[in-house]
């Protein structure tokens, strides 16, 4: 319930239709793409411009009301789950592309613009916006900044942070600030990078200048089959080790390819233990030369079959399997749980073997789909949320995979963010001094901790509750430090 005084304040700065408080109205905002966490907010505000947003934040700040900013709600770590006493600030009305500058190769957009809409608008100029999370039809650029979203093409073209020049944002105090600039560099602390992946804990963005990339003249993809997963993992290392930077380098195991084949009929080999999709893009000459090298390396790495797309139609068909992997898995199981650990590439086959062992231990199926070039795993653990033992098992299975990633020098999230979901693993990945640095940054932006509280970065006492801080594989980090 929103305090009546706060409600009155918000109502005074927003149009009638832009403040929702009844359960029927706020229900659509109760969760994000990770549906295991749900909460109804006290209110949903839909500001129409920056001035209204500033007023909303100022009121919430003055009344100590938590604020959760929200884009399209496609995030996968619970980052957009409302706070029960708080206000969801939905940025849906910030949906204009303000300008496209083909000389500077940039576009200025509002945060509620969908990822793919930027590419569509830039297409007449021969440009596109490179980062392409799977949800790009729906997800918004504001959410992409908050999560530092990646995608299939980020191996070559970088993550969101590499493709954004400038962000205009409002702090919880209502102050409007700009990070970065129109040039490639900017003086002073790199606040632009800090905002990326900050999961709505530092500021609410209102305007984003993105970098546009010239559309490659042509692209070709190779689909390579492997008789075992380890060989496919080694082939990934061989491609990268050969100095090739493919436009995309994706891997799927047998569970995934079978699910996909039944769904989209992309022509994936059904007997292979794993397949790789390797894309080259550029001018026709570059693509021909790179594809020749790619097929040579894949062959030498033991591919049992290689199919190279002959035209754009076939290229899109081969990619359709990868892009449809999540819904394809969704047809096989009532629920699935997508993990987002990232590991150094050379640990790939070791980690995949361990995950295989865990499927037996937990008696749950797991399909592996991932951005192999970045070492970013997306194991999809299949379970039935109505069976309590399976739900609990899936969560524990996922947690073990994440801790395995940390063990081999990786990280618990490559692109989906920490949200609510991975708070316990944050306590495993980071030491106390590191968490204190995160908390210091947070306090500099939001000393009252009103923006998206309870997400992203655990407090030290939270880590103590999780029991994760004290012992990690028997080794106490910094035993000399006093503990709480």
């Amino acid at each position, binding site marked *: 319930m929103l305090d009546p005084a706060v409600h009155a304040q918000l109502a005074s700065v927003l149009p009638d239709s832009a403040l929702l408080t009844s359960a029927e109205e706020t229900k659509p905002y109760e969760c994000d793409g990770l549906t295991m966490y749900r909460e109804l907010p006290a209110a949903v505000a839909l500001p129409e411009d920056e001035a209204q947003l500033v007023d909303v934040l100022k009121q919430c700040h003055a009344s100590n009301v938590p604020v959760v900013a929200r884009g399209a709600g496609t995030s996968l770590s619970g980052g957009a789950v409302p706070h029960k006493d708080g206000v969801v600030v939905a940025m849906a009305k910030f949906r204009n592309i303000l300008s496209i500058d083909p000389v500077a190769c940039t576009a200025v957009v509002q945060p509620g613009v969908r990822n793919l809409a930027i590419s569509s608008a830039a297409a007449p100029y021969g440009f596109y916006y490179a980062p392409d999370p799977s949800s790009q039809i729906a997800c918004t650029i504001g959410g992409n900044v908050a999560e530092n979203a990646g995608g299939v093409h980020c191996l070559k073209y970088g993550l969101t942070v590499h493709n954004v020049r400038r962000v205009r944002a409002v702090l919880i105090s209502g102050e409007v600030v700009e990070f970065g600039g129109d*040039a490639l560099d900017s003086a002073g602390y790199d606040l632009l990078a800090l905002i990326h992946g900050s999961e709505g804990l530092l500021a609410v963005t209102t305007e984003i200048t993105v970098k546009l990339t010239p559309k490659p003249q042509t692209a070709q993809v190779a689909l390579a089959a492997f008789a075992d997963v380890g060989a496919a993992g080694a082939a990934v290392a061989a491609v990268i080790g050969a100095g*090739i930077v493919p436009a995309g380098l994706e891997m799927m195991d047998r569970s995934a390819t079978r699910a996909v084949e039944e769904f989209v009929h992309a022509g994936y080999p059904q007997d292979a233990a794993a397949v790789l999709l390797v894309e080259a893009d550029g001018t026709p*000459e*570059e693509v021909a030369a790179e594809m020749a090298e790619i097929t040579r390396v894949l062959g030498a790495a033991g591919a049992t079959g290689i199919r190279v797309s002959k035209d754009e139609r076939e290229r899109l068909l081969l990619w359709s399997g990868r892009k449809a992997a999540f819904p394809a898995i969704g047809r096989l199981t009532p629920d699935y749980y997508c993990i987002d650990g990232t590991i150094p590439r050379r640990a790939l086959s070791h980690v995949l073997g361990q995950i295989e062992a865990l499927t037996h231990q937990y008696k749950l199926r797991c399909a592996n789909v991932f951005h192999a070039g970045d070492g970013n795993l997306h194991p999809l653990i299949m379970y039935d949320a109505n069976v309590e033992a399976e739900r609990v098992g899936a969560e524990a299975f996922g947690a073990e995979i994440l801790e395995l990633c940390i063990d081999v020098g990786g990280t618990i999230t*490559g692109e989906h963010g920490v949200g609510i979901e991975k708070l316990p693993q944050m306590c495993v990945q980071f030491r106390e001094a590191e968490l204190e640095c995160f908390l210091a940054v947070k306090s500099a932006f939001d000393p009252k901790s009103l923006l998206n509280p309870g997400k992203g970065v655990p407090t030290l006492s939270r880590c103590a509750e999780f029991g994760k801080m004290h012992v990690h594989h028997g080794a106490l980090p910094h035993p000399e430090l006093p503990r709480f």
Partner: protein
Amino acid sequence: MNTHTAARVQRPDAKDVADLVTLLTADYGERALTSRSIRDQHSHGEGLADAGLPDVVVFPHTNEEVAAIVRLCHAARVPVIAFGVGTSLEGHVAALYGGVCIDLSQMNRVLEVNAEDLDCRVQAGVLREQLNAELKGTGLFFPIDPGANATIGGMAATRASGTNAVRYGTMRENVLGLTIVTPDGRLIRTGGRSRKSSAGYDLTRLYVGAEGTLGVITEIQLRLYGVPEAISAGICQFESLEGAVQTVILAMQHGIPVARIELLDDVQMEACIRYSKLEGLAAKPTLLFEFHGSEAGVAEQVAQMQAITEEFGGSAFEWATKPEDRSRLWKARHNAYYAAKAMQPGKQVFATDACVPISRLADCVLETKADADATGLCAPIVGHVGDGNFHLCVLFDPDAAGERERAEGLARRISLRAIAMGGTCTGEHGVGVHKLDALVAEHGEAVDLMRTIKRALDPLNIMNPGKTVPL
């Protein structure tokens, strides 16, 4: 000295400093030095001299030693200034309030090279040329190449860039993780081996470019690249500066993946011809190119590039395909600062560092050229231009009436011009002590946040005080 900070920091108590020096010399023996000449050598980089001798210079060998030194400084509230090889240009290493200079040059080991993952981990004192020498034979290289043979730690701290940022990015894109000693003397690790992480805030990029004001960088995880199959370098000369700049703009718009594009104006060209004894070249506006890729890819890039240069009145390309010819060419470019200095021996020099969006590059370079000519000072232009970044080496005689003022006025106008065009006062040299005012002009309200972050992470303000962010 900058008025923003002078009032905010106080020199530590002389007795506290003396006690600390005693402790450090007891612990580190000959690795803790207090002689005037050593302290003097550690008081400045390559830019203008700044008043500020450290009280003692310590040469640690391990992360733990750095942490222990910082803990002592923290307890005594004495400033800590990290030092690489002293090639910075904005007064970053000046000990404005005295204190302990931590010279990291003896932490100079390449700790690991992971060819499969295309990364390596090095200690902060490793020099960039040393790293590439050690990578020989692995088929890998580290591309970032500021003019000076700087340390990797210093390059990370100042978010350095170089001639091939247009293709490979700056230190911002190429540092994967850091080991940091925090102001209270604890070791933390940021980022790591994996290519991407969205766990927690991006502390790696916060410390990259923080110029030693938030902590001391002791180890750096770097991204490496495969040595390209084919490399080809070319020189193209132009009748007008505008033709050269328009060439760059069009090349960037077409997305030609040039590895390097360097602009030298007529004056800089004259300096380089004289200093590096370049033959067969005229003192005209010049572009140096380098193309990386497969044989076919490079041939294609070159053909595209030549079509553009012809359109803007460029000469036929002179080619340097042999490695030794290429290194001679780039050596000449890297020595541009020293070449400019040699134009008028005895004069002082400082380098400006404007960076603008590529769409404003022509306006900014041409206005700046006219501005520089009007001052009557010798101020050659050189720049990476592909990323919108260019420098003037402004020469002046500190004893001649008004010359310093004219030089500083020019530098200030260049910073403000770049900012007004949506750019920055510093593309790669950093803020240091000289650009605190420009930082405020560039970022406005966001400087408050930088200040708050500085206070949150370094509440005692002992890390390189007086630099980077006006308190």
